[in-house]
């Protein structure tokens, strides 16, 4: 890090020592969302810096490491070493928002468990499609509970450990009640319009792409 002894007689606006310039280039390349050109590095480092030289040092420093400094066109970026690509598998996760039907069903199971399908429908006011329940079970957020000891012995649903884990809860009992929701300002006390009766409600539904909406209704 300490290269040649620094010539003290140079100006106040002296460029930082090369070790410092290397740190700067390192930080800029790391944080940037795209490869950074040399011109851009010159612009971003203090006056008098020599990012080209800093890049040479930095490149050497990362040689053989888990991450390498590579040149992409006329720009520079850090990239995982080619032989470690197999470790990167989990990064390719595509996240989608849960449909409104699913989140409502999930909420009802969480608050009312163990709960039967008929009870979920009673609370939501609409039929629960099999796809919704299947999806929540596939996500391992709900599972079958004990059968209800009533005529027909319907199955019940309860939330899973994975659910608690995902939502950062210690137990489903930690969920706040309606009064607490309102007190905490999480709940608008203004009555909400029924589905489909207002434009604002329509927007809510927008996060379901039309295709997912359909397939949920028409699952095979």
């Amino acid at each position: 890090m300490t290269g040649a002894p620094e010539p003290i007689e140079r100006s106040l606006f002296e460029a930082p020592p090369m070790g410092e310039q290397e740190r700067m280039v390192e930080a800029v390349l790391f944080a940037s969302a795209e490869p950074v050109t040399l011109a851009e590095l010159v612009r971003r480092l203090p006056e008098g810096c020599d990012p080209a030289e800093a890049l040479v040092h930095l490149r050497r420093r990362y040689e053989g490491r888990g991450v390498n400094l590579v040149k992409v066109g006329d720009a520079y970026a850090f990239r995982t070493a080619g032989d470690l690509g197999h470790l990167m598998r989990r990064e390719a996760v595509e996240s989608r928002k849960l449909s409104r039907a699913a989140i409502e069903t999930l909420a009802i199971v969480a608050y009312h468990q163990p709960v039967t399908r008929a009870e979920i429908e009673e609370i939501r006011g609409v039929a629960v499609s099999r796809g919704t329940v299947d999806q929540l079970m596939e996500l391992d957020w709900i599972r079958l509970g004990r059968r209800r000891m009533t005529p027909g012995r319907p199955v019940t649903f309860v939330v899973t450990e994975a659910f608690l884990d995902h939502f950062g809860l210690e137990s489903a009992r930690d969920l706040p009640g309606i009064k607490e929701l309102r007190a905490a300002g999480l709940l608008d006390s203004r009555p909400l319009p029924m589905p489909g009766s207002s434009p604002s409600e329509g927007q809510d539904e927008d996060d379901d792409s039309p295709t997912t909406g359909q397939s949920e209704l028409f699952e095979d």
Partner: protein
Amino acid sequence: MAQADDWAPDAQSDRLAPSDRLASEALIVDVVGFEGPLDLLLSLSRTQKVDLRKISVLQLAEQYLGFVDRASALRIELAADYLVMAAWLAYLKSRLLLPPEPGEAGPSAEDLAAHLAYQLERLQAMREAAARLMARDQKGRDFFPRGLPEAVDHRRIVSYEASLLDLMRAYARIRTRDEFRPYAFDRHNVYTMEQALERMRGLLGYMGAWADLTSFLPEGWGVSAARRKSATAANFAAVLEMAKRGQVELKQGEVFAPLLVRRRGEA
């Protein structure tokens, strides 16, 4: 306290000198600027310029009461909590000044005063802590995460996202709907598209030549208008879906003519 004296109510509040008017306006601004009685007390306590532990609660009570008097003289509406605090401080003041009644139970006036001082000190401490917290280096401002997270493998794993907040809001939405609108969903007279689809699928095998869609109404759904409407709409949606899947064909001679349906591939 000089300040408290300044705020003593005086009779001529109706005819305010310009300077008084300025003062009263400043007071209004101040009242608005305070976040409740404790905040006001904390501000007042600063004029004592001592360690909050050694603050004179008696003096503070007088300042506060002076403030409230002044506000009422200026006809400033004070929120109830300011008045509750004033009443409590007046009580505390009297307890501090008078010797304790013999045989009196409960905490002493000194204990109450000490607790108030503690509350002020704690609020002050949390304010300072908050300031120190916000002065820390913050992500996205002073230090940065990796700007170009790498996704090497192209195998896609779909993960569904939902936060606890989404969950609670969804539940709140359902519950408040019930609260404000009596639950009166008439399922008896509603025929769902799923039901229709299920049934029409079963009938698929029997569909030969072109047949009027209305002839497929389920039993008992053609009598009352509401039920007929619901079943017709559900059947219509169901055959549209089936047509989309290539299971049936639909045709209609002209606008409002009967809608005809047959199984696809039927000559």
